[in-house]
């Protein structure tokens, strides 16, 4: 992992070098720790993706198909005519620089090509030279570059160094969305077999087993049962959730990390407790066992392919509507893509809370509700019996996950839930939350160990804001509503703000819920004593 100390890593020079950015050189050997391993041939073959092979970015020859330039340029042309966003974003940037210092990777590394404007220019320079009249004539004077293998290597480095968090897009006067540009770049690279394993393996797993982790149905059931045992140990309440049950009212979709790894598993326990508390008529699915969708980090076609199972399963099980757990990019897909790609969901009913009668008109077409919407509505109607003091050992802050914030605008719901289930809640500085929120720096497939230095660098803005509230208010728990966050924020916090733990919002809901038939609750869901109360600062 990181060999540099935080004090060393923060020695960042944001001043650009003297050389011209148009020179495309990336020394992969010297930059180990800041890039991800390429996609394994096996995964590519399983998905029928082009050019499966074993290779490394440090190789001189990347084993590209002979006509790779033609493939890329044809793909470029095709996407310009299929996506207005791409065509417009290629044409209208004025390089005003407003986005330059908004990227967490730029702030944490000082690498000028992590300025969103230059990240997009890596594509635009090719667009100008090969696909516009002006650029064909004027070449470099018009900001054009030749598409060489070096340029392609630079694409690989920088477009797998963008977490598609869309923070820059909030500040852009034209809304130019680097996530969209990165998605296009990754689609183009995928045409010639340039992808990363932390994306490709989950994609292949998801296609086969239904979830990124490759958990097969019997293990899925085992995991759920194991977590229910743990839950029983902590609370004395026995819960047996149904799986693949036809005729349930609600299909509950979650990211697979929630039933696989700490600390997501405590969030999972929280969900189950909430449903048990209510007596909700719901089912899990071992087939649609993943809400997350690494297709988002691959190509639009792959998003659709992997997302297919959600409505397919809802229809098969005959549920009325879908409830979704805490996951960031999953909700980008559910909110902005699912209905368009795999809808219309005319076999489902408009979601309605069985306990409050609230009709979720904001989900009238997609028929899928975010669990924070569902729970905040219950809390508003006072439908839950809670003991907030069980979370008193936590001094809590909330990290807005990129996609729920900037794709959905889901800002108040999780905060409302938190304020109702814990007594000590503190916001991080305002330029680092809500629509301004900073990424965990491990999204979009970058949350792997070989990329750890870049993750910690990109994690600086979030880590520094966290350190601020830790020191100012004694914050010792950062909550979030994203499975990737729950995995990647742990090392980030350990590095930049030691002493702060990471949890999902519904873990705290679970802690606070007074369950029928529960034992005297002396431990929280983590099996830690709940008694040690945080002193007021």
């Amino acid at each position, binding site marked *: 992992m990181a060999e540099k100390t935080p004090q060393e890593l923060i020695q960042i020079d944001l001043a650009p070098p003297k050389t011209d950015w148009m020179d495309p050189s990336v020394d992969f050997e010297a930059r180990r720790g800041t890039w991800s391993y390429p996609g394994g041939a096996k995964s590519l073959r399983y998905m029928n993706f082009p050019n499966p092979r074993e290779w490394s970015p440090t190789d001189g020859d990347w084993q590209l198909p002979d006509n790779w330039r033609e493939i890329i340029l044809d793909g470029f042309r095709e996407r310009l005519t299929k996506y207005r966003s791409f065509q417009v974003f290629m044409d209208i940037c004025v390089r005003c620089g407003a986005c330059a210092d908004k990227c967490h990777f730029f702030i944490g590394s000082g690498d000028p090509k992590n300025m969103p404007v230059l990240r997009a220019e890596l594509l635009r320079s090719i667009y100008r030279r090969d696909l516009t009249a002006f650029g064909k004539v004027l070449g470099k004077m018009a900001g054009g570059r030749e598409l060489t293998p070096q340029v392609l290597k630079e694409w690989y480095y920088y477009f797998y160094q963008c977490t598609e968090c869309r923070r820059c897009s909030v*500040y852009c006067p*034209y*809304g130019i969305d680097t996530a969209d540009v990165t998605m296009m770049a990754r689609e183009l690279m995928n045409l010639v077999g340039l992808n990363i394993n932390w994306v490709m393996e989950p994609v292949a797993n998801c296609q086969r087993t239904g979830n990124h982790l490759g958990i097969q149905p019997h293990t899925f059931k085992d995991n759920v049962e194991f977590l229910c045992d743990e839950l029983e140990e902590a609370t004395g309440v026995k819960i047996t959730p149904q799986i693949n049950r036809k005729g349930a009212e609600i299909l509950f979709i979650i990211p697979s990390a929630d039933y696989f790894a700490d600390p997501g598993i405590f969030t999972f326990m929280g969900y189950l407790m909430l449903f048990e508390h209510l007596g909700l008529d719901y089912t899990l699915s071992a087939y649609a066992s993943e809400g997350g969708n690494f297709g988002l980090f691959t190509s639009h076609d792959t998003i659709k392919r992997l997302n297919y199972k959600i409505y397919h399963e809802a229809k098969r099980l005959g549920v009325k509507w879908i409830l979704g757990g805490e996951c960031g990019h999953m909700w980008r897909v559910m909110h902005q893509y699912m209905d*368009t790609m795999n809808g219309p969901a005319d076999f489902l009913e408009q979601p309605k809370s069985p306990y409050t009668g609230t009709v979720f008109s904001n989900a009238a077409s997609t028929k899928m509700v975010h669990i924070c919407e569902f729970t905040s509505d219950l809390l508003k109607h006072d439908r839950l019996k809670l003991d907030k003091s069980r979370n008193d050992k936590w001094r809590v802050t909330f990290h807005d996950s990129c996609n729920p914030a900037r794709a*959905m605008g889901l800002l108040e719901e999780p905060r409302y839930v938190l304020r109702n289930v814990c007594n000590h809640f503190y916001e991080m500085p305002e330029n680092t939350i809500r629509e301004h929120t900073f990424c965990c720096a491990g999204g979009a497939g970058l949350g792997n160990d070989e990329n750890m230095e870049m993750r910690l660098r990109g994690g600086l803005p979030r880590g520094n804001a966290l350190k601020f509230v830790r020191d100012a208010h004694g914050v010792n728990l950062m909550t979030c509503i994203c499975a990737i966050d729950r995995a990647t924020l742990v090392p980030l916090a350990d590095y930049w703000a030691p002493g702060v733990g990471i949890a999902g919002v519904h873990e705290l809901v679970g802690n606070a819920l007074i369950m029928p038939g529960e034992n005297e609750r002396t431990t929280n869901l983590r099996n830690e004593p709940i008694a040690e109360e945080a002193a007021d600062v």
Partner: protein
Amino acid sequence: MGALLSLIAVAALAGLAWVAVAVGDLRYLVGVVLPGVAFAVFIIGIVARVVRWARSPVPFRIPTVSGQQKSLSWIHHQELESPSGALSVIGRMLLEVLCFRSLFRNTRVEVDPAREKVSYIGTKTLWAAGLAFHWAMLVIILRHFRFLVEPTPRFVEWIQSVDGFFQIGVPVIYATTVVFLAALAFLLARRLLDAKLRYISLPSDYFALYLLLAIGLSGVVMRHFQKIDIVDVKAAMAGWTSFQPVLPQGVGAMYFVHVALVSALLVYFPFSKLLHAPGVFLSPTRNLANNNRAKRHVNPWNPPIVGHTYAEWEEEFHDQLVAAGYTLDKE
């Protein structure tokens, strides 16, 4: 380098116009033919570009949301940051186009390694300079209507009187003239002096700024130093609106330089980043409502992709499913 090349290019354009008129006696070419052609290129170029944009469909509704969504009735919804329908999208776009809403958010990051502190300091200079420049340019363009239309429209007279409110100089120095040049000078200085900006700037970024500055300065020279006969100019311009262009008499070479530079701007516009003007209206992250789950968005080319179906999945994992006690669709 790019800065210098662009300066040379703009100077060459101005010089060429000057030589053409002062030495070559090509007044008709520079004063009538050139602007006519340039205007045609401008209009056709913009229309062609917008048509090209419009022909690319919008397969997905992908607004960048910058405020609370519309969800539960009791949660305050930020309509202009997260529009829920067409009307609020118009509101968001108006704020963007008229007030530069997004630039107003701008911050500057500072990393202090000694204190291990990252700070975000609100900065409004780019917003202020950008807004000042664009509004001043709009007013200046509107002011030029007095050359084009006879009699001078009421609104132009009104604008002129407000713009010249301070009554300084003869002829009156318009406030927008000063603002226009000052804002451009600031935007140029920023590009030249800020290392990050200099690094990302292309020759075309400087070219546009120099060209606009040169247009402004040549206008100032005519109005305030040469004090050219505007009756003549007006007659010439009026000829344009009736499609019977005539050459103004009694105007110096500066007039032709001004006209040539404006022509250059018009020709340059549809092929350059200046397209941001029409482009901002077509940006899918700004001009779409955040009502994705409430209202279905249709992709005209939605590919017929089917994922791994349940039946295939059940078949592949049949034995495990049976062993784990799952109920199967197909026994």
